[in-house]
């Protein structure tokens, strides 16, 4: 089994963190994992993405040309990857900022993660809402494992941050 995921959005949406949380959780569940960021001459307001592979076997390339799943957090990212990937099994799309027109193949889960995050009181948790939504569908790692990673990653003394991320994770997993 190998699951190759591309996570994309704009700088500041917690794209790298989303990937790290997912990869760390998979590692804790004894899977092979790789995480590869997009890096270089990135510009503010442009796209940022990372690539996460989770497998039962050693992983060859951390670079993902053919993704199994995409988590897309804004419109430019959708444009960028729509034409570049084939045979995708799942699209998770932030409908607050991107409209999934002309997507061919694969299941589409679209929810307004940014608006939902605002509703929870912190726009920054849109990423974890999307992760919850993705995991409910893919069952790649247990939500409890993700919770433990969130606790581990949160800076000391930020109980409120842990609480709201936890809330976002569970709410994301309830979305239909």
């Amino acid at each position: 089994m190998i699951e190759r995921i591309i996570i994309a959005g704009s700088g500041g949406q917690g794209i790298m963190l989303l990937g790290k949380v997912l990869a760390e959780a998979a590692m804790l569940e004894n899977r092979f994992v790789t995480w590869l960021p997009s890096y270089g001459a990135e510009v503010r307001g442009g796209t940022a993405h990372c690539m996460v592979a989770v497998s039962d076997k050693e992983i060859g390339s951390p670079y993902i040309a053919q993704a199994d799943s995409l988590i897309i957090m804004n419109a430019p990212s959708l444009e960028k990857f729509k034409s570049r990937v084939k045979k995708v099994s799942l699209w998770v799309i932030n409908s607050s900022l991107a409209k999934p027109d002309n997507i061919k193949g694969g299941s589409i889960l679209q929810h307004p993660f940014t608006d939902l995050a605002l509703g929870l009181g912190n726009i920054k948790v849109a990423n974890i809402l999307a992760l919850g939504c993705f995991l409910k569908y893919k069952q790649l790692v247990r939500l409890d494992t993700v919770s433990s990673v969130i606790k581990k990653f949160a800076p000391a003394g930020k109980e409120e941050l842990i609480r709201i991320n936890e809330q976002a994770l569970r709410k994301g997993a309830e979305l239909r």
Partner: protein
Amino acid sequence: MITGNEAIAEGALDAGCRFYAGYPITPQNELPAYMSRRMPQLGGIFIQAESELAAINMVFGASAAGALAMTSSSSPGISLKQEGISYIAGARLPAVIVNIMRGGPGLGNIWPAQSDYFQATKSGGHGDYHCLVLAPSTVQEAYELVKLAFYLAEKYRNPAILLADGMLGQMMEPLVKNPKSKIPNPKDRRKEWALTGCKGRAPNIVKSFYMREGDLEKLNLALQKHYQLIQAKEERYEGLFLKDAQIILVAYGTMARISKVALHTLRQEGIKVGLIRPIALWPFPKKAFAAKSSSKVRYLVVEMSYGQMLEDVLLTVRDKEQVEFLGRAGGGVPSAEEIIKKVKKIL
């Protein structure tokens, strides 16, 4: 999980490195960033130098004074350091130089590449010298090999290069620290040659400059003998399915990971593929080819370059008809699918 760059920094610190000087360049910046945070905590020295030249010469000085010293950069920055590396090799000093390669030539880009193989293995600076060159292919191995690089550098009083590409530097993978590591800690090594203050003993001299006729030739002869010893003792490689293989992939670093995927896919189809993964690039693991070079096995060298390690494979196998090549450069990375296609075309 940790990035390759951070794993290298961590490995260096665990090896006892307490002097780092460098100048920033992508895609290796996480390495000095990590060093800048950890080194002061451990009582070591971190210097962001004013240039690559300054950094390598600080390492030269620190090493002469007996410190376990290291610098790191990426391709164009490593080019700038070549003069210093040649001096370090000439003065017979240990030092570790990390090159997280990017696409070239010139300023290049920041995508992964393996185009600095020649520079690393054939003495990139002036003079007849060699650096030990180690090439990790996972984050875990990056950690292990930088420790080994320090050990070997100290053991042979010779600069050692850790050669990896931008992908390995940037990616994150789990890292497990093995407390039972077999690599001895070079901290325990006594450095009788170091410039530590000569009160009560004869002064030590560290130099690469020999005026008297014949003296420099003597140094060169000593170095050559030394390189022969390293060649005899320090070849390192991983071999997979070498016994029954009809075709053997030869790849290092990130390309070896991708080659393994191609190998397993082809094996499932019943095609007998093997892999030689050089772990040391210098000394080049000639013995990996020894058993096979007389028979009719084919080799497919896969690199993120247009054929650099290929030349060492040709020098080892000697029969051009047996050796094929697949390579891309400038940030292009051959995929498992491309390797599979090429193997099928050859057979």
